[in-house]
């Protein structure tokens, strides 16, 4: 650990990122450009989130890292190990015990508190990018609040599928001003963005952007009066813990059509199982769920 500067990055880089974080907090939803560094992991593995975490981490922090809700997948394990080695911080899998949580594509089911910071890994920060590939144009659209194109996209969803079929990275409007990509979280998580007591920071390493939501910020998912936003999830209960209100992953269990639904938030699910809750396959599904 002592071979690295605290939390890997040099102090000048951290200052640059910290200044960008302050501007991002002052302009909620606006993407602040920053001089993203090469990290010792490939782009797409959360280099934006890792740089935010490195700039925010203190020795007293207790870090939790999740990848699609799970603490035990490759991305989460390697980032957690990275900061154990380079910052010597304590780690945890329990959402309640964590002071800083880095996440890929989920917001924990357990409600966050004032004392926590949530850092998102973001692949494409620009919500308008797949509608307009030119950065010069999307920048102008944000400047002029010209978001009609986004509503056309949602309308075309309705025309083609009868409903808004966008199910993740569902666009939101922040405090009535900037349209923002909440990163590829399922739209089930969108309501948790608004009025959250924790600080939410978003980092895109390859795209070199940082944006933020201060606590208690109003975040509205875009929709239409006659097609209101619905935070959908698979129409099942968790097969391990029986939860009916958490986001579920579908797991294929054999080649004869067998499947099960389990909480994507592993800490939430384990907590419920330990508390005695049981789902349809509780006790007989250890092999499939591992």
């Amino acid at each position, binding site marked *: 650990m002592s071979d690295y*500067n*605290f*939390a890997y990055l040099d*102090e*000048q880089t*951290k*200052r*640059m990122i*910290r*200044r*960008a*974080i*302050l*501007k*991002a*907090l*002052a*302009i*909620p939803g*606006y993407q*602040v*450009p920053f001089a993203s560094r090469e990290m010792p992991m490939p782009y797409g593995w959360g280099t934006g989130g890792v740089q935010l975490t490195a*700039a*925010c*981490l*203190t*020795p*007293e922090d207790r870090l939790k890292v999740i990848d699609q809700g799970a603490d035990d997948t490759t991305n989460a394990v390697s980032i957690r190990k990275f900061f154990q080695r380079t910052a010597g911080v304590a780690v945890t899998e329990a959402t309640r015990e964590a002071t800083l949580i880095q996440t890929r594509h989920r917001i924990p089911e357990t409600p966050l508190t004032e004392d926590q910071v949530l850092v998102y890994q973001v692949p494409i920060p620009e919500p308008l990018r797949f509608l307009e590939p030119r950065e010069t144009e999307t*920048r*102008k659209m*944000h*400047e002029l609040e010209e978001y009609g194109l986004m509503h056309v996209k949602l309308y075309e969803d309705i025309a083609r599928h009868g409903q808004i079929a966008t199910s993740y990275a569902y666009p939101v409007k922040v*405090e009535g*001003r*900037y349209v923002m990509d909440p990163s590829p979280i399922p739209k089930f998580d969108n309501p948790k963005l608004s009025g959250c*007591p924790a*600080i939410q920071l978003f980092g895109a390493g390859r795209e070199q952007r940082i944006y*933020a*939501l*201060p*606590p*208690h*910020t*109003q975040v509205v998912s875009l929709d239409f009066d006659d097609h209101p936003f619905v935070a959908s999830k698979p129409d099942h209960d968790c097969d391990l813990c029986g939860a009916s209100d958490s986001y579920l992953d579908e797991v294929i269990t054999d080649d004869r059509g067998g499947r099960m639904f389990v909480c994507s938030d592993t800490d939430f699910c384990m907590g419920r199982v330990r508390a005695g809750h049981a789902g349809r396959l509780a006790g007989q599904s250890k092999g499939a769920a591992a």
Partner: protein
Amino acid sequence: MIPGLADRAIQSSRGFRVLMQAMARPGTIQRLNLTQPPALGPAAGSVLLLLADPTTPLHLAGDLPGLAPWLQFHAGSPLTGPEGASLAVGRWPDLPLDLLPVGLPDYPDRSATVIVELDRLDADGPRLTGPGIRNHASLSLPAIAPFRANRALFPMGLDFIFTCGDRLACLPRSTVVGDA
């Protein structure tokens, strides 16, 4: 020469978390005491050492004896007039608010962060609402009209860090300043 930050990486990480909480929750008063600079209080000096470096042109407003060489040694920021500043520091009457950059319509982040040293900083005064504030907050602002004008520029505008001794509170451009 008065020392800067002891154990820089660790101190600045703790200091930044305090500053980030202050900026994310406008109007809340935090304590920050990492150094004792010339001419200003510990909070203002700590914020300067957390944010300033050779890439941030700095405007020193008014008479701040001994501060320039101290910052030159510890941060190395180039000194500039108000028009080119990304950081500005001074007492309230000395700050040329009209001249500091407020950012561009397409790059509103290219605006100055203003560190204002005050004689008093308490949780009373004008009512504050906006992002980061659950219901409302109050802060003893040195004026009201300039901050309302600043809010009217949103998303452009200046971001303020008020300091008094070892205490600090922030007023980003997003905060709506109501009546006292």
